């Protein structure tokens, strides 16, 4: 299916400034888009403010991003996107190793350390899902009860079961391809008979090669034995619809976002380029949801506009209005300042930007928790050469992983972890295949047939196993602002302080040991090494590791049961400001071992219901937003 229809409802500074809406949403990423769509469908008048360009909703503009990617020498994970000076974004190559006590102010993020993190996000229409990878796993029931079960981190003010219907709604919205049969571990429960909208992505040749030798290997951790198994990874990318979905009604994949009919956005074709951009729009990005929101005719979009300050009524705590800055030229200085009023405000600018905006508005919260408890997954990468050509650099980035150790009693002592098998070779760790070509040409002095054979031996056999490690909420890990560091518009830049605790590092060490065993079992040649000069280099127990950022910023407006130690309640509503919701991964009280987006999308479905109830519009029953087969 192709989304088609009229031109998207882009509105203008003049039409908006000084006006009042039912709901104003900051950010057109998946968080903002889900809420906008749900509210627009119920007749609420919604305005979405977006810091990035408004053009990119059409296929033509999307093509421009694809061409920008092809033509860029440095194919970093934001290389498909311009970096406007008026709404800047982090780039991973800005990260540098910080000497003790030093900071790095070169990029958009001001990094105070001690651990510099190379995570990014994207300030464009549709937000960071434009270049996300699309893994869409649920969190485990245990993840919601970290304090009660393991004496670590925090409990959520809601349980896994409270979110089940919203998870279903999110799986429908994002279009998740996966087989529930492969997800039977760690207490995961999808409810009887439930199936995901599309069948799993076929496992890669590499996955199968690994499964053949690895399945059944046993790992003992804190006295508990886990048999390992290669399992398909649920992901938000178009595959083959499952006819059993929705009680046999099936599922119609959503295609490319366009104002014209376009023959794009069908099945994933294996471009291996989900990050930074899928050329055929087989991968979900939030423009799909946003477009559906705009099609309700109740939602308007003001792009090229940065929300800059929330103003609060001192007596009631209500947000009275929002200040924003609209620019004409993405890079040249100059903007107009406007204000907008609403019954309800929603910040959906992501965990870093939501906190930044609150703090820039002098709203640290009565608990002083805004910006604190910053979490992100830490990735330890391990890599090896398979004994035979394994078909690297083909297919979606990951089609399978090892999930069996995602929870267990060991979490009393060390962080949870899941592993992904990479179909894209060693690229993330070493800059392959460019670095391999360089090595073969410049150091091994190869050319001609010997060069071709060298590439087969060295690239096609590549296997990278990423270890995605949980990080607990810790109040000293935080986003803050500082008047010394502002962007061109005068908005404070995010200042990041972050460190890894022994709880996380213990699992990094464990994972390195486990990867050695896995490589031994596969007969793979271990090439893993960690450069002490690389950003993210840490020592633990006498060994060095490089930790990479997970791009899963979370925790900065943490959810809890009271205003004393949390920022929002279980509907993402601010304790201090009754007409303000802070939406997205910033609300998460733990991140477990699931990439955050499916969970934050589920939370946003929940928030839309709360907003509708508060506005006196009857909320859709949860049961109708999910699907049972």
């Amino acid at each position: 299916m192709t989304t088609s229809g009229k031109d998207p409802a882009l509105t203008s500074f003049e039409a908006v400034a000084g006006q009042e809406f039912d709901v104003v949403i900051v950010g057109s990423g998946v968080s903002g888009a889900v809420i906008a769509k749900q509210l627009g469908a119920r007749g609420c008048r919604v305005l979405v403010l977006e810091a990035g360009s408004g053009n990119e909703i059409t296929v033509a503009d999307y093509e421009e991003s694809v061409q920008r990617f092809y033509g860029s020498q440095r194919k970093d994970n934001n290389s498909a996107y311009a970096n406007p000076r008026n709404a800047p974004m982090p780039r991973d190559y800005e990260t540098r190793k910080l000497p003790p006590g030093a900071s790095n102010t070169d990029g958009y993020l001001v990094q105070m350390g001690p651990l510099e993190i190379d995570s990014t996000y994207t300030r464009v229409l549709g937000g960071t899902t434009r270049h996300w990878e699309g893994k869409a796993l649920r969190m485990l029931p245990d993840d919601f009860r970290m304090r009660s079960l393991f004496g670590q981190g925090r409990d959520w003010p809601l349980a896994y079961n409270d979110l089940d219907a919203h998870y279903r709604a999110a799986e429908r919205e994002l279009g998740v391809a996966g087989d529930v049969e492969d997800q039977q571990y760690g207490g995961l429960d999808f409810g009887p008979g439930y199936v995901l909208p599309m069948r799993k992505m076929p496992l890669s040749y590499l996955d199968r090669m690994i499964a053949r030798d690895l399945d059944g290997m046993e790992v003992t951790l804190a006295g508990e034995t886990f048999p390992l198994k290669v399992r398909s990874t649920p992901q938000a990318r178009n595959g083959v619809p499952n006819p059993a979905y929705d009680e046999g009604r099936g599922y119609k994949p959503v295609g490319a976002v366009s104002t014209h009919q376009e023959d794009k956005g069908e099945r994933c074709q294996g471009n291996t380029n989900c990050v930074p951009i899928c050329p055929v729009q087989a991968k979900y990005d939030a423009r799909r949801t946003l477009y559906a929101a705009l099609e309700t005719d109740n939602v308007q979009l003001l792009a090229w506009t940065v929300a800059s300050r929330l103003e609060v009524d001192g007596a009631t705590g209500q947000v009275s209005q929002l200040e924003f800055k609209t620019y004409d030229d993405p890079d040249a200085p100059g903007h107009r300042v406007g204000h907008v009023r609403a019954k309800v405000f929603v910040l959906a600018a992501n965990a870093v930007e939501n906190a930044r905006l609150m703090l820039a508005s002098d709203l640290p919260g009565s608990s002083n928790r805004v910006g604190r408890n910053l979490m992100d997954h830490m990735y330890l990468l391990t890599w090896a050469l398979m004994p035979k050509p394994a078909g690297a650099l083909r297919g979606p980035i990951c089609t399978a992983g090892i999930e069996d150790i995602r929870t267990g009693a060991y979490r009393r002592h060390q962080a949870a972890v899941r592993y992904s098998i990479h179909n894209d070779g060693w690229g993330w760790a070493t800059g392959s295949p460019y670095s391999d070509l360089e090595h073969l040409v410049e150091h091994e002095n190869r050319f001609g047939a010997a060069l071709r054979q060298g590439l087969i031996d060295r690239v096609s056999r590549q296997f990278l196993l990423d270890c995605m490690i949980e990080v607990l909420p810790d109040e000293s890990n935080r986003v803050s602002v500082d008047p010394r560091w502002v962007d061109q518009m005068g908005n404070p830049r995010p200042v990041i302080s972050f460190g890894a605790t022994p709880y996380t590092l213990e699992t990094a060490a464990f994972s390195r040991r486990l990867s050695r065993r896995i490589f031994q079992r596969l007969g793979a040649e271990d090439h893993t090494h960690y450069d002490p000069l690389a950003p993210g280099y840490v020592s633990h127990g006498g060994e060095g590791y490089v930790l990479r950022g997970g791009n899963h910023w979370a925790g900065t407006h943490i959810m809890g049961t009271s205003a004393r130690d949390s920022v929002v309640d279980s509907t993402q509503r601010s304790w201090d400001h009754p007409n303000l919701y802070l939406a997205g991964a910033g609300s998460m009280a733990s991140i477990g071992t699931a990439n955050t987006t499916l969970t934050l999308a589920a939370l946003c479905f929940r928030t839309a219901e709360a907003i509708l109830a508060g506005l006196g519009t009857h909320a859709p029953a949860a049961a109708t937003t999910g699907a049972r087969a």
Partner: protein
Amino acid sequence: MADMLDGFLALSAALTGFTGHRLRGTGQAEAYLATATGIVGEGVMRDLLLAADEARASAGGDAAKHEAELRRLIMSDDRLGPVARNIIRMWYVGSWYQLPKPWREAHGQSPRDHDHVVSPISYTEGLLWPAIGANPAGAKPAGYGMWAMPPRIAPG
């Protein structure tokens, strides 16, 4: 420069291990010849092609001898070796990389001698991917589910 194209393709075939026919099929030969010549100058390019002719002639069809001659006359030559290696890079990943500092100091600077992708198409025509039976990330996908099959690593 048109007269240089055949020589350039013959040299490129020897350097990349792909046939001249396959190289021509990428549609990039003219762009790579122009990029390299524009940066190193016609003199260097002509010498490089002459050296390639000489290597081929003295090998007389013996592949091992041909390779040895290329090493002797081109790959180990201070002036020609770095240019030949950059031609390999262009064919494999579509990018020109800045020549090494000693080369620039000895043989001249060019304002165009910096890391750059020759054209958006040059990236998608990169030979590195077909060499291992894959596709350049983001282009020329093999189709749904093809990643489940063994890689097809074809000569050519």
